[in-house]
């Protein structure tokens, strides 16, 4: 991707869609956030109009923003007893079903993220659509615009419970037949809820509650001092070898 193209694409997006899209550009990648109601119209325009020509939908995936930016280990303030060694977070892998995180102050948890590719103009674009209702996340289906999105939407439905309105065949795709829940949600335990084994007495495979305990080896930490530039400068400065 050349340097000039994403910028001019951003300008074209602003000129065409105005306030419908809220754009963010970083590292030569453009992200456009839009409301679920505008998605179909924008998608059709992006596919067909000259200057966009996004003939391929490369990827669609769900995201659950629950717990975004939360850490398990306080690194800023050191208490009298040192760093908080007793980790009591609720990040991925720390909880079972009974202890799953519930309350959230984040207004909108679920989003569908779409990656588009224009083969003709050699450009990419990322769209993000937040679902308005956390308890019933709904996004319009793009199957009418790019039929290839079919399975990606099924996957996002399966793993996150995002409903794609207008999808012709919204079944589970990756999880087991008869699976309960949406496993990639941040409040779904990493250890799962059930485990299977073959029962020689009943002569069939049986489902039982999980017997393993949640276990995470490395706490989730966000550090302000993780300053790569400084580390790079230190490394470049070969004072040790002098």
């Amino acid at each position, binding site marked *: 991707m050349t340097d000039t193209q994403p910028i001019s694409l951003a300008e074209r997006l602003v000129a065409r869609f105005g306030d419908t899209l809220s754009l963010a550009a970083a*590292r030569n*990648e453009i992200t456009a956030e839009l409301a679920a109601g505008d998605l179909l119209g924008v998608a059709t325009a992006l596919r067909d109009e000259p200057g966009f020509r996004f003939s391929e939908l490369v990827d669609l995936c769900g995201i659950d923003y629950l717990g975004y930016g939360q850490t398990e280990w306080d690194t800023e303030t050191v208490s009298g007893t040192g760093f908080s060694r007793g980790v009591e977070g609720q990040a991925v892998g720390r909880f079972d079903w009974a202890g799953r995180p519930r309350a959230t102050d984040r207004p909108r948890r679920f989003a569908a*993220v779409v990656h588009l590719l224009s083969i003709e103009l050699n450009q990419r674009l990322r769209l993000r659509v937040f679902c308005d209702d956390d308890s019933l996340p709904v996004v319009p289906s793009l199957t009418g615009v*790019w039929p290839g999105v079919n*399975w990606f939407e099924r996957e996002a439905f399966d793993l996150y419970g995002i409903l794609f309105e207008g999808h012709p065949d919204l079944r589970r795709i990756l999880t087991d037949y008869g699976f309960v829940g949406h496993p990639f949600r941040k409040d779904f335990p990493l250890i799962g809820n059930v485990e299977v084994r073959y029962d020689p007495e009943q002569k069939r495979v049986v489902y039982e509650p999980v017997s393993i305990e949640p276990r995470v*080896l490395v706490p989730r*930490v*966000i550090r302000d001092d993780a300053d790569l530039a400084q580390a790079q400068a230190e490394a470049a400065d070969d004072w040790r070898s002098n």
Partner: protein
Amino acid sequence: MQEIRNYTMNFGPQHPAAHGVLRLVLEMDGETVVRADPHVGLLHRGTEKLAESKPFNQSIGYMDRLDYVSMMCNEHAYVKAIENLLGIEAPERAQYIRTMFDEITRILNHLMWIGSNALDLGAMAVILYAFREREELMDVYEAVSGARMHATYYRPGGVYRDLPDQMSKYRESPWHKGSDLKRINSWREGSMLDYLEAFTADFPSKVDEYEELLTNNRIWKQRTVGIGVVSPELAQQWGMTGAMLRGSGIAWDLRKKQPYAKYAEMDFDIPVGVNGDCYDRYLVRVEEMRQSNRIIQQCVKWLRANPGPVMLKNFKVAPPSRVEMKDDMEALIHHFKLFTEGYGVPAGETYAAVEAPKGEFGCYLVSDGANKPFRVHLRAPGFAHLSSMDTIVSGHMLADVVAMIGTYDLVFGEVDR
């Protein structure tokens, strides 16, 4: 006689032509397929969720296990995504090594594909020939990483270590003896680059051998010409990439169009099909092997002439050397922090794609600044390809379904993730 109309047939998940664990529910009208409903997910391991619970570096090994016949290309996408967010770039030598191993991986993948696809369609010999050369390249994987398949060789900031100076030799055994043993070991006298030079000099003649078995083979052509035709429009609608797209006549290759690593410096061609049928895709992939061979040769030449670091000297991301660690307190601290906690990746999101042998393998990475990814989504080419199965296969005969599965080049490690 009782008239039987449409009936439903179950194909797989345990079927030798299903390439792993594909279950296909086929609605048949006689021997003609009316509707195909692939059931995937039997190999779903939740890689993306597992990655959320571990520091960034600990998930590199999981990438090998996605598309387990093109291991290092998967690593490349993941590592590239992390590097994007960190804003770092691997040293030039590491970039050349990555380019070279991406192409070694492409040959490995295509050899597996040509062997198994021919086997599916009744040509039993090809897989024996293909695995002969696969074994030779597996040795390169082993020499550089210690593992024949699941290498975990790429790291954010470079590669794990430099290329080895020597190749391990075969000992005499009932399987390797006499002139055969001598020939194999004669390649292994020097460094890994010498070995690769010998391999790449020899490999085009091996590709000729495969072509001799298939390209003008009457049965092979009957089974593939005009079968599973994908028009350029259809290919784009269904998000196809890689050989599936190029077979339909669209010259799209990320190595040329959005070059990464050192592909911009490489001299190679992109083969393109005309009819978009299974036969054209076969020709495209065979030619890709020859082109990969060329790229490897160019990389070998450069790597021979240009020694240098293969890892960034940034202790926040890359571990210090053992010697340094024993000698220097700060290096010891860096080492400890890196292996107990990992490194924080600045908040943001990125999508990094590489031209994997099967198509565009992408990694969408969201970080909130922590030492673990907030969300990783892996865009597997096989997943998009397989979803078009129903559209392409309906109206074909049952035996053509097998040809189609073969030409998709499916590996369920990546489809199911």
